């Protein structure tokens, strides 16, 4: 136990740190939690109550009719109509009741309400009621309307997910996103690894210049590339008589845009491998190709993993490149694009938006939590990248 640690463990200061971090964690978690909870709620409940009330259940006002006059029984001096306002709805309970729509919760459950004219009404928590009059019920007293506030237990449903996966095209977009992401994550690794090896272990004129170029290109904004490439794609499309927005087109684009960071990350790792291993392999007569595939590639696994997570997250979460190079028709719309489109067309339908958002973020979140270690390592070695 060092002195520093002790310093921070002194009473109130330590307690304050715990409380502050807890507060921060809650603030950071709540936004995502809101989406997650809302996506599982009934779509009618989402709009009438905040998602934070979802667990406490909600109360709804329901109208019910009391029994008809012919059900009345004499009970001592009084006449009574009794029954249950919750007919057929087991497991619910009543908080309050009232006889006017403006005051549906005028009386607590179990209370006896004096309705005037000698009429009294008691509605119990379980829904049974006792409607009594000090004389026989007249013909107008039957079928009286009452309002009860019914406590609804928290209800969760997967219906929203079913709706968006099939009805809103999110299922198709999920496939499209995978189609874009898998090749665009794997193809750049191999190309960049060869280049990184050449830049770290082969002697040739202009090497330092090329490394500087790669570092410089890491931060070049995507916006600089969009216009010329869009024109180039259109020209190539016309030349080959194919559509200009295709999957191969976006694979190449993502591969190229990820290339500077890939080379930079892999180079700093590969250059740090022990010199003796590579030189002794050279002495044994191994060619550079053999050294690369048999020694360097297996040893570089951590760096390859870091980069592939970066590239995966970047491609999966990308909107701009997909909009420009892949287009927004149904067979090409990726998840981020679909979500953006839904924000426009379904702006108020939170059950659709939240469920779609959750499907969009769940894959990167799983990757994130499973491979966080590699992601952190990559960040630490490549923190010149602008995202």
């Amino acid at each position: 136990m060092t002195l520093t640690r002790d310093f921070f463990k002194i009473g109130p200061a330590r307690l304050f740190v715990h409380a502050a971090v807890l507060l921060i964690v809650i603030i950071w978690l709540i936004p995502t939690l809101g989406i997650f909870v809302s996506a599982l709620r009934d779509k009618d409940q989402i709009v009438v109550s905040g998602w934070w009330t979802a667990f406490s259940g909600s109360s709804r006002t329901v109208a019910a009719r009391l029994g008809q006059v012919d059900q009345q029984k004499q009970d001592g001096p009084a006449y009574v109509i009794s029954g249950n306002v919750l007919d057929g709805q087991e497991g619910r309970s009543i908080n309050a009741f009232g006889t006017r729509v403006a005051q549906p919760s005028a009386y607590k459950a179990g209370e006896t309400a004096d309705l005037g004219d000698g009429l009294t009404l008691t509605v119990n928590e379980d829904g049974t009621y006792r409607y009594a009059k000090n004389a026989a019920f007249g013909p107008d007293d039957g079928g009286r309307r009452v309002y009860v506030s019914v406590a609804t237990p928290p209800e969760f449903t997967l219906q929203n997910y079913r709706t968006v996966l099939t009805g809103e095209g999110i299922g198709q977009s999920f496939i499209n996103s995978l189609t874009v992401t898998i090749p665009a994550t794997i193809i750049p690794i191999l190309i960049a690894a060869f280049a990184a090896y050449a830049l770290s272990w082969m002697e040739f004129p202009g090497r330092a210049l090329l490394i500087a170029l790669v570092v410089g290109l890491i931060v070049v904004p995507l916006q600089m590339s969009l216009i010329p490439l869009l024109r180039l794609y259109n020209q190539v499309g016309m030349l080959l008589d194919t559509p200009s927005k295709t999957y191969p087109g976006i694979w190449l684009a993502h591969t190229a845009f990820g290339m500077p960071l890939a080379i930079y990350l892999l180079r700093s790792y590969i250059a740090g491998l022990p010199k003796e291993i590579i030189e002794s392999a050279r002495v044994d007569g191994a060619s550079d190709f053999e050294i690369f595939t048999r020694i360097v590639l297996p040893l570089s696994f951590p760096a390859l993993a870091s980069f592939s997570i970066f590239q995966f997250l970047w491609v999966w979460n990308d909107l701009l490149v997909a909009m420009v190079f892949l287009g927004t028709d149904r067979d090409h719309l990726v998840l981020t694009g679909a979500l953006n489109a839904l924000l426009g067309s379904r702006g108020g339908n939170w059950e659709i938006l939240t469920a779609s958002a959750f499907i969009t973020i769940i894959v990167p979140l799983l990757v994130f939590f499973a491979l966080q270690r590699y992601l952190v390592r990559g960040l630490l070695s490549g923190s010149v990248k602008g995202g």
Partner: protein
Amino acid sequence: MLSQLVSALGVVVVAVFACAAYFYFSNKLLDMALPVKDGDIRAASQNLNRRSVIRPWLFLFPALFLLVVYLVYPVVATVILSFYDRSGAEFVGFSNYQWALGDREFRQSIFNNILWLAVVPAACTFFGLVIAVMTDRIWWGNIAKSIVFMPMAISFVGASVIWKFIYEYRGGNATQIGLLNAIVQLFGGTPQVWISVPFWNSFFLMIILIWIQTGFAMVILSAALRGIPEETIEAAVIDGANGWQIFWRIMVPQVWGTIAVVWTTITILVLKVFDIVLTMTNGQWDTMVLANLMFNWMFRGGGDSGRSAVIALIIMLAVTPIMVWNVRRANRELGGK
């Protein structure tokens, strides 16, 4: 639907094989073209030399090709296009630049970008540093870090939906289902349509990026803080420094270089911010930023490549100092080896 996925996986296999085949056969071809035979020692050593001159370029070719076509050429082409008219056919000199200077929307975007640049990198770095210092002192710090870091994995579009739900406004007497308005109501305030409040709405968009990027700053700074020698802090404690003084006078100066890296990295990200503005407001209510304005002009009225190019160049210009700084830093590291 599934066939599409299978074909994507097929592409991966084919591409990896093609890639491997390219490297394998180009190397084989080189060895065959420049044979090293036992007899003629002079020719053999000459060929060996030639091989080692050519081989690096075989390794580099695919990467360089992609870099040149997708990044180097477009930078040059964008500069040229900025001097041409909307279709890129006719030379118009500086008229696109003149248009930009006089355009209200452009100036609004510049103003907003400066606002974003002033707030987001500073906020992310500050929160990241504070959270890093605090989480390093408690036993469940790693869990807390994971949670703050988590939004990094969420797309900007996803994050926008998440926060749009928080900013949600319901008119009339309806129950507020947006968390922010519910809290405001709880304290007796009036619910607002937050993303259309003039000037302040940009800040509500910035909060989204801060929420995403603070984790990044925290991770990098936390690693740097752990690199501070214990003795330095112990010495300060013995000299009677309090927590506040230790933080500002000992810790912050020691990680100054890392703070600069984090700050510049987030600065570049902010300059390119696009998705958040597109999904939250699409530039309405004076929230336009350069990247979105550029994108709009790419397609507005059939597209205007000249004006669009000028806006892209402004972003590039803002990034350039950081680029130069990065290259210098990388060169220094190389020289040191």
